[in-house]
């Protein structure tokens, strides 16, 4: 199809969709440089909102808290999830199918329901709201994504490689460390990125579980949208998307997801 008329139409379509995907993000960035507090046009360039952001400890603290929670979530969920995927891949046992099906409720049940259920439960057992509850919730939401993504990568793994290594006398830990993990590294990185994204953009569960004065960035943004949204939010969002872009490009060098197989 290369070079044909249809291919051009296809590429144009892709371009149009990318424009659709990025239009609001560009508007968001644009408005962070606009002087009007009420997002009024015409556009008038100003760095006021970045200056105000620099002094807004509430937003900066929330952003820092979000990054820390997302990083912790990523580490825990990726470790536990990879371990579980290895067990699900390597062994046949009764109840395996059930365990695989159990991964779907957290993805399939609307977060609104999961979040309120967590609030009721954590409140009932005396843990209440707060960062520990938020963290427990985030890891639980990220886990299924990690397991699904890592398992998908494991499915392409050639078992004979492990057997060959084992026949040469390597013990199972060495096999895992030297043969299996390097092979699924790109899956683990993709899973970790998913976990980070799930946690970092998670507002429903955080909204119900975070403590007054200790909210994460998405919660702060949600409450601001309802109560008092200023372009400072645009400024911090712009900074975040730029950092994300850098991180993604960096991660892309280490994994070839999406590229040639």
């Amino acid at each position, binding site marked *: 199809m290369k070079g044909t008329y249809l291919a051009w139409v296809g590429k144009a379509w892709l371009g149009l969709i990318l424009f659709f*995907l990025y239009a609001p993000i560009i508007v968001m960035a644009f408005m962070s440089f606009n002087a009007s507090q009420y997002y009024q046009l015409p556009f008038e360039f100003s760095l006021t909102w970045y200056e105000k952001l620099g002094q807004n400890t509430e937003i900066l603290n929330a952003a820092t808290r979000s990054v820390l929670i997302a990083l912790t979530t990523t580490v825990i969920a990726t470790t536990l999830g990879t371990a*579980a995927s290895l067990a699900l891949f390597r062994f*046949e046992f009764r109840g395996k199918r059930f365990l695989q099906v159990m991964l779907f409720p957290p993805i399939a049940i609307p977060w609104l329901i999961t979040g*309120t259920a967590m609030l009721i439960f954590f409140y009932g057992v005396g843990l209440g709201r707060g960062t520990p509850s938020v963290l427990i919730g985030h890891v639980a939401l990220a886990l299924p994504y990690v397991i699904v993504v890592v398992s998908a990568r494991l499915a392409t793994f050639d078992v004979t490689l492990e057997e060959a290594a084992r026949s040469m006398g390597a013990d199972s830990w060495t096999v895992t460390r030297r043969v299996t993990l390097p092979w699924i590294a790109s899956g683990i990185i993709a899973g970790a990125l998913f976990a980070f994204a799930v946690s970092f953009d998670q507002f429903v569960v955080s909204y119900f579980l975070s403590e007054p004065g200790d909210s994460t960035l998405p919660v702060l943004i949600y409450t601001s949208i309802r109560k008092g949204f200023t372009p400072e939010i645009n400024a911090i969002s712009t900074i975040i998307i730029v950092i994300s*872009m850098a991180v993604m490009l960096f991660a892309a060098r280490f994994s070839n997801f999406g590229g040639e197989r």
Partner: protein
Amino acid sequence: MSTVLARQDRLKIASLLSPAYIWLTVAIFLPLSAMLYFSFLSDVPFGDAEWRYTTDNYQAFFQTSTYATLLWKSIKLGLTVTAVSVLVGFPCAYVLAKVIKGKSREALFLLVILPFWSNSLVRIFSWAIVLRGNGVLDLGLNAILPFEVDVNLMFSTPAIVIGLVHSYLPYVILTSYLALQAIDDSLIDAARSMGANKLTILWRLILPLSLPGLLAGAVLIFVPVVGSFMEPRILGGRVGTYFGTVIEDQFVAVFNWPLGAALSFILLAVVLLILATASPVLRRAQA
């Protein structure tokens, strides 16, 4: 692999699996059970509140037409958003997987999934700035077009659909792309050499083979959209009342948690029912 497990293997399985599954149990399954229990209480058992077991909360759903109307409205929204996303996203995934080659594909793929890393609320709020009267879209179109148009999509159902499609489109592109990438190009070449035309190839070969990915994406979109409350609230204005917004109200504004829980489980049951109805199709697609 043998089905009879050595003691050592069993230990290994347990040590690898239990951390993840214990976590899921504590954070997801126990809370959901607690919520189910709450939905049968007359009042929240905190403080000195008096409560008893009751099915009133479920009956409330049937007593007025309000909840059923809103649930149906939410399901329609879910179907619309899913359909639009699939129709728009699948061709996109196809172009990405089969037309574009090499390094630029990787770059474009990253561009498609990057919006996930920006805050979904901020994106929705940006749509508000784009869609409202005298907003970016209005000014932009009037700058290009020779005649005067008055675009004010804000606070309407189309605005909600646009915002939701934007939020969830990458899911269906992602899953379809992964499925399409797995189709061997030589299969397509073979079909073509046997004289099949493009439409036949698409309908008889590509679509069936990529259906699992397409459906997975559709489910990932449909489920959260049915329960959505933030997007309708911000973009919908007067028409932005949905089943999800009513549930949110029960939890954060009206403090009727038992009713909120009952409504949540009704939503969950309906979503699972829809998925169960769709699952034979899913299974056939995988076979």
